[in-house]
């Protein structure tokens, strides 16, 4: 108590220097926390997006994840309704699982024959109601910006395509897609220009021609190899185009009702799916759910090897992004920690020089070397504590202001404008970790000056001018 009281008064003795040191630490702590808050928001945004889209885990054929992209239908799960029923009837999983929904992925070719264009696609069959249910998952309390899945309530032959697919298949006008470039048709320059009246007639004729055929301008044909290897075709009415975030995916992605996809791939054969998506109430239930799933899957694995993959395994981009931000956070912390180290060290060294006679006096009247060390280390720790606490307060204030401004940004792999949030409030681990880390650095930087002060010869210290 005596040491603490003396340390506080010594810090207050040179208010300007102590304040400058405190401000340096506080600005450092604020910077760390604001970046941490930004990083946390990215984590939660991406986490939520992936869980809303693909659930927390997926049951797949053991080899689907590695080899399925080549021939998805070769890794179908038979008897999937029984697996779904087993999950829904399990007394533990029932309370954890919010949505359990089957999906079917396949490769094929989509064509808009009216425009004479086609391209390879990845087709996906979903249960639309389940997908919409999944899109409501918001465990981190983010501002809800995810649009509802348009397939719910749509006709059986309805489809949603990536904007890239729509662009390539020249569906932009029909789907009223903004900012959708069209290919420039080559104009033949040989010969005379077409008379104006004929050109006008031609322009009027083109839409009439397609309309006259009775085919909807949104209609596409999808060709895929069925489970027996023979080609099958289905006709789909594209009701919407959605940007998929990545150009590569955007130019491949076609979504339809699961029944439609199964009809295309399996015809009258017993239908299969390539994945069963499981979305849990909370992400921290993943280990428990995985453990609980193992014996259930074992009963279905006799004829088909099954595996459960969590969303981190399924989405390595998410893991890599979080690792990148963690690395940057660590780098910033180290950088600011070094600044704090030198700032506090400089302050304490100056204090030792200024108070040399005082150190000699304290030693003369009976304070041990350890007492001197304790005094200066306590002063360093107090500087660290006050600087970190001030930094936390500033970070909370600043983040609250930024969060109220309504700024938006687009996360990697997403399309929708997301609210720019700095999540400092509620990040208890980060706040306490930063505070503790800065106190440790402050104590460390005070230790050497404290040691030097304690080692001073009493007589030399008393003689110091």
């Amino acid at each position, binding site marked *: 108590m*005596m040491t603490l009281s*003396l340390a506080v*008064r*010594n810090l*207050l*003795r040179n208010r300007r220097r102590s304040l400058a040191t405190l401000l340096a630490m506080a600005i450092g702590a604020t910077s760390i926390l604001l970046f941490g808050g930004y990083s946390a928001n990215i984590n939660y945004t991406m986490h939520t997006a992936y869980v809303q889209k693909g659930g927390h885990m997926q049951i797949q054929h053991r080899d689907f994840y590695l080899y399925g992209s080549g021939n998805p239908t070769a890794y179908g799960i038979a008897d999937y309704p029984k697996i779904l029923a087993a999950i829904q009837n399990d007394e533990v999983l029932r309370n954890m699982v919010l949505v359990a929904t089957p999906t079917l992925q396949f490769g094929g070719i989509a064509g808009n024959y009216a425009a004479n264009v086609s391209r390879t696609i990845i087709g996906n069959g979903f249960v639309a109601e389940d997908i919409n249910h999944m899109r409501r998952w918001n465990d981190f309390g983010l501002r809800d910006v995810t649009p509802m899945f348009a397939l719910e309530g749509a006709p059986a032959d309805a489809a949603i395509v990536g904007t890239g697919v729509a662009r390539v298949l020249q569906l932009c006008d029909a789907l009223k897609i903004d900012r959708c470039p069209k290919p420039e048709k080559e104009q033949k320059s040989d010969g005379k220009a077409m008379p104006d009246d004929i050109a006008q007639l031609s322009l009027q004729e083109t839409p009439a021609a397609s309309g006259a055929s009775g085919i909807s301008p949104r209609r596409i044909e999808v060709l895929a190899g069925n489970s027996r290897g023979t080609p099958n075709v289905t006709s789909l009415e594209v009701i919407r185009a959605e940007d998929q975030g990545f150009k590569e995916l955007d130019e491949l992605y076609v979504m339809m009702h699961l029944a439609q996809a199964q009809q295309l791939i399996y015809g009258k054969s017993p239908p299969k799916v390539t994945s069963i998506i499981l979305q849990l109430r909370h992400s921290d239930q993943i280990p428990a759910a995985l453990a609980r799933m193992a014996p259930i899957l074992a009963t279905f694995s006799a004829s088909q090897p099954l595996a459960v993959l969590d969303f981190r395994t399924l989405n390595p981009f998410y893991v890599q992004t979080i690792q990148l931000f963690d690395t940057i956070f660590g780098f910033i912390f180290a950088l600011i920690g070094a600044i704090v180290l030198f700032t506090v060290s400089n302050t304490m060294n100056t204090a030792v020089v200024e108070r040399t*006679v*005082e150190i*000699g*006096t*304290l*030693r*003369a*009247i*009976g*304070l*041990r*070397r*350890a*007492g001197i060390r304790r005094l200066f280390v306590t002063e360093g720790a107090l500087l660290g504590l006050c600087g970190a606490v001030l930094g936390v307060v500033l970070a909370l204030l600043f983040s609250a202001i930024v969060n109220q401004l309504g700024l938006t940004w687009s996360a990697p792999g997403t399309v929708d404008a997301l609210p720019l949030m700095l999540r400092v409030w509620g990040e208890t681990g980060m706040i306490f970790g930063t505070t503790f880390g800065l106190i440790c650095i402050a104590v460390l930087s005070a230790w050497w000056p404290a040691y030097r002060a304690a080692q001073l010869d*009493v*007589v030399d210290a*008393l003689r110091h001018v």
Partner: protein
Amino acid sequence: MAVLTQVEKTYHLDSVSVPVIKGVDILVRRACFTVLMGPSGSGKTTLLNMIGCIDKPDKGEVIVAGCKVGDLTDDALSDFRAQNIGFIFQNFNLLPVLSAYENIEYPLLLAGSSSKKRGERVPKLLDAVGLGDKAKYFPGQLSGGQRQRVAIARALARKPKLVIADEPTANLDSETGAAILALMRQMVERYAVSFIFSSHDPDVIKAADDTIFLKDGTIHGIRRQGEEDAP
């Protein structure tokens, strides 16, 4: 109270060695007011530092309060000083962040005295040095004489056997210096503590029981009160 036997001390400044104490024998008597007299550089402060256990001789033996202090570790020496020796400095050396009361209380806190004991002891000492009404004043708010009074009270806080004072009146005007001298003399009688201090002031000799005359690191003469063997 303190016995120095054949004590020698040499300071080494770069490549030059300066012997400051050359085989000195001193006896500081119990409950006596002892003055070390001599010109600058005669070794007064060095001797006081050795008697005060903040410096060690190169040769010879120092016994304070019956303890051979040369054998003690640094921590043991610190504890020994806290228990047995009080210090009064020329520049007062009070802790500027502590009030008069707290400065006097500090050695008691170091000793782990209870709050009750401290509450009894500190006001008594403040009254004894005539600063009962200045308890809450900080050193910066006190005059030089008042600061030295606080320093005297601090030196006496733990009832030491010996008080070391290095030119305690040097930074005071003659009137205040005389008052401080009288106060120290009074403390010797009141608390039966040995005071040893250094001075160049010939007037101080009048107040001393014993006066030790130093010159060039050797004893030039010792005068006990009533004797006339001074140089």
